Each structure stands twice: as C-alpha cells, then as structure tokens.
C-alpha cells in the first residue's frame, strides 16, 4: 500500500469539512475522488498536500507517517499537488514556473531533460516557454500546473479539479494527457466534479458526500451504479 489515510478529520475553525474518511492507494493507480460542491474533496486533497493540518486521523506514505509534516516537507516525500484554480506563478514565465517545480532537485542535467519531456507531453507549453504564465489560456494554465507538479518527480500526483472552468474540448485534451501520465506509471489521485469523465479514466473511485465517503469501488462499477448515475451523472 502506497498511501493510507485513516479516519481523517479536517476542519476550518469550527466547521468540519472532512469527517473521518479512509482511503488507500496502490502504486501506479489512477484513483478519483468525486462528489458535489462542498463535499470536502478539495479539503481532503489539501490535507494530503499539507496545506491544512488534520484535526484527527493519520496519513501514511509507504508506511511512514506524514500527518504532521508541512507542505514543503511533503514535496520532499514525493507528493506534488496541481492545485485548484491552478495556483501558478502568474507573473513568471512558463519556464520559470516549471523550474520552480523542480526547486528541491539538485540534478540540473536531469531537470533540463525533464523540462524537455514536459514540453513533449504538452506541446502547447513548448511554444510558450518565455510567455508570462498569467497570459496563458485557462487550459494552458492547467497544463502548466500539472507539468510543474511533475517537475518535482513525485511518487504521488494530486490533481484538484483539472477540468474547472475549461471548454469541453480542452477538458478532453487534459483528461487524455492525465491518462497518458498514468499509463507511464504515475500514481494519481484525481479530484473532480465532472464525475463521468473522471470515472471513465480511473481504475478506482471514491464518492464523497458531506465530508464522508459514501461509496467506493472499481470505477467502471460505479459508473454503472444507478445511485451514482442519478446523483452525479445526470440520471
């Protein structure tokens, strides 16, 4: 087991956004976490990335407890987050953004190679290396956020709502790329509101509701589940 989350509680002040969830991931898996607005998906992801500290419960990565580590320490442990709303450095260039993704790495030569690999994975970015990231389109910014997260050579990639605010054609493109990254062996936890697309590309899935996990299982099975279909797939 690569990632094990047990009885995780996370709150903002007195509000409990996540109320005791359990979640496991194996290496190389693409798992999605779906649910309605305000179900606690993003909060869960933030807790995994160390942006929020849980009030209860534990997170272990490769049997090592990482529950109390700060976000910058989790990057050292191999967790990378492409945050919701992209969280890119809007006034820095595409290349500078990508290099900051590799901030903790000392292997300059390998970083340069990875940079080329990212450009191969996202050709749109290679045409815009010197462009200011804030002037990219929404889809390109999302690509940049994912590429930047990959630059740290993570063992676990966390993606928060990569489809948010994007045109359908761009959403298709992003999801194709996510599948390609997963096919290369990356372990990915995908948080998505677009349940249908997320279930289609994932192996397993968790359904969240009011801070709790209500359903989980093989993605294809959930896709066929009438309960899920009615609640999240528009009947």
């Amino acid at each position, binding site marked *: 087991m690569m990632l094990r989350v047990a009885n995780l509680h996370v709150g903002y002040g007195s509000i409990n956004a996540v109320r005791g969830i359990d979640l496991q991931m194996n290496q190389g898996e693409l798992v999605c976490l779906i649910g309605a607005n305000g179900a606690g998906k993003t909060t869960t992801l933030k807790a995994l990335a160390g942006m929020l500290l849980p009030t209860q419960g534990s997170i272990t990565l490769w049997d090592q407890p990482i529950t109390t580590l700060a976000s910058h320490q989790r990057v050292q442990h191999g967790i990378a987050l492409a945050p919701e709303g992209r969280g890119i450095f809007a*006034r820095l260039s595409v290349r500078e953004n990508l290099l*900051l993704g590799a*901030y903790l790495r000392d292997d300059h030569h390998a970083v340069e190679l990875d940079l080329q690999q990212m450009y191969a994975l996202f050709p749109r970015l290679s045409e815009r290396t010197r462009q200011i990231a804030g002037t990219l389109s929404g889809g390109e910014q999302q690509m940049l956020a994912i590429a930047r997260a990959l630059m740290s050579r993570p063992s676990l990639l966390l993606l928060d709502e990569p489809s948010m605010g994007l045109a359908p054609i761009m959403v298709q493109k992003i999801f194709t790329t996510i599948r390609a990254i997963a096919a290369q062996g990356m372990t990915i936890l995908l948080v998505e509101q677009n349940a249908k697309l997320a279930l289609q590309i994932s192996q397993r899935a968790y359904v969240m509701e009011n801070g709790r996990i209500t359903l989980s299982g093989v993605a294809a099975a959930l896709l066929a589940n009438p309960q899920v279909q009615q609640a999240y797939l528009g009947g």
Partner: protein
Amino acid sequence: MRPGLNKLQTGWHALQRDRRSVVITWLALGLILACLPFLTELSLGRSWVRILDFTLLYIMLALGLNIVVGYAGLLDLGYIAFYAVGAYLYALLASPQFGLHWPVWAILPLGALVAGVFGVLLGAPTLKLRGDYLAIVTLGFGEIVRIFLNNLNTPYNITNGPQGISQIDPIQIGGIDLHQTQHLLTLTIPSTHLYYYLFLIFTLLIIFVSIRLQDSRIGRAWIAIREDEVAASAMGINTRNIKLLAFAMGASFGGISGGLFAGFQGFISPESFTLFESIIVLCMIVLGGMGNIAGVILGAILLTIFPEALRYLGEWQQLLLGRVWVDPNDLRLLIFGLALVLSMIFHPAGLLPSTRRARELHARRSILAQEQDSLYEQQR
C-alpha cells in the same frame, strides 16, 4: 540543429570581439571610481566628497532593503532600525561611553550579526502578514527601536538618550587613522577620501553578494514567495525560513552600513534614524527599479545627490531674481516630492526596472485586459 549551432558560433564570435570592450569598460569604470573623490574635490569642493561618502552608505542601505522588498516582496517601512542597530553597536563598543575601544574588524561583523538577529526578531512575529499589514508592523518596529535608543539613558545610561554618543573612535585600519590626512608618496589623501575608498570596498562587496544571491536558489525562492506564498510552499520551499533569511540578510547589510556611518561621523543620536530615513531608502529602490541592482544603485545616487544639489536654489534665486523669494529648504523638499511623483507617473517600474519587473507590469496589464474581455463576453 544547424541554425542553433550557427547562432551559437556567431554568439561566441561576438563575445570574443566584445570581451575586449568589456575589459576596457571595466577598466575605465575602475579608474573613474578611483579618481572620483579627487575630481569631485577639484570641481565641487571638499563638502561634495562627503556627500559621495554618504551616497555609498545609502547604496549599501538600499541594496539591503532591496533584498527584503525587491526580492522577497516584504514591504518594510522600519528598515532604518537595522542601520541604527549597527551604528549604536559601533558607538557603544568604540567610544568613551563604556570605555571600550574595540577594533573595527571585530565590530563590523558583529554589527552585521546583531542586525541580522534583529531582522529575525522583526520577521518571526510577522511571518503571516503581508502588504499593508506588514508595512504597519515594520513601521512600528522602526519607531520602537528609535524610541528605545532615545530613552535608554535611565535607569542605566546605555545609549545616552537624545544627546547621543559622541567621541566615537574613528575607523582605523592597520594603524592608519581614517580621520587623519594621509600621505602616500607625493599624494595627500584627506580623511573624506580615505573613507570614500573604504566605503567603496564595502559597497562593491555588498553588490557582489547581491548579485550572487539574485542568481541563487535562494533568490528564486524569494521571487516565488513574492509571487504566491501558498504555491511556493507547494514547490517544496520552506517559506518561513526563506522569509526570515531575507529579513536577516537585508538587516545585516544595514548593520554594516550603520557601523561604518558611526565611525565616519564620530557622533550619532536617535535623530539620524527617523521614519523619514526609512522612507527615503524605500524611495531609492522604488525610483531606481525594485529588484534590479543597477536600478537600486542609481536610485540611491540620485536621491542622495539631488537633494544636496537643490541646496543651491537659494544662490540661484539670488543670482537670477535679485533676492531669495522662497526658502531653499522648503523648495528643496517640494521639488524633491514633485520629481518623485513625476518619475512614478512616467516610470512606474523605476528608472532601470529589472527585466522581470517590467515584464510583470506588462503582464499584469494584459492579464487585466484578458479578465475584462472574458467579463465582457459573459455579459453578452
């Protein structure tokens, strides 16, 4: 591959051709800097060499503040406090106040260290603050330090209060007293000139450190924090330590500069470390070009020399108009303020903006334009 290689070759040739002119430029610059005090004395008089000395002190201060404000984006309005810490440390350790007479080479590093500690003291409680809020706290910090210095004469007399500390030991290097005119072969070097050379060495040192920091991993981390702190921490940057480092580094530059000031001046009092001084140093980096070393130096030079030059306004009025109509001191600040406003209107990124800052200003406009476009689309 081929065009890239060609470009590389022409670039290399250009470099080879250029290397000569680069060397010549540097040699000329070095020669000018070496002769500057003598040329200044000949053309403008001894008092202007003193102004030159102060210019160098301000360049050091501005470069220190540039680390905090320009690189890390932490608005500090109490920066002069670190200058005060360095100056008072020198004054207390090398004056009759406590009967201590430490050598300058012991005091200056200690001054940098103590100022750095003060920087961390300011930084630690303000880690979560940004922008206006940070500015207010730092402003308060600067005033607290000054008021402490003003009042630490009772119950134990440490700082001698508002009277300040006088008879501070002049800086001595290898038995050479910088307060005495020195003779080198046939050359007579007055004290102001000696201080000029000493300050020049320290200024060059601080410029060197600034350049190295800018291109380092730490420099990149500062920029990331300035842009987006949450995203920076998601990149694995320890934002707390990196911010404290910015405060400490900036403060230590101020501490060194303050120590040199105390030794040069021979007398210090809390009056030298008012909020106005903090604001002036901030103006230097904003006017010159935040984050760009050359710009910051230019800003420091202009804002030190310009107000001094405006002192001649009285004489000019006398000469041109027959009598002094407006007190030159009032006019001086007025014109000074007007010049700042004008330069901010026409050069919002500073006279010599860093390439990044210029791009950012440009980008911010196009981001705004884009957002407006999309808003417009939505409304339709």
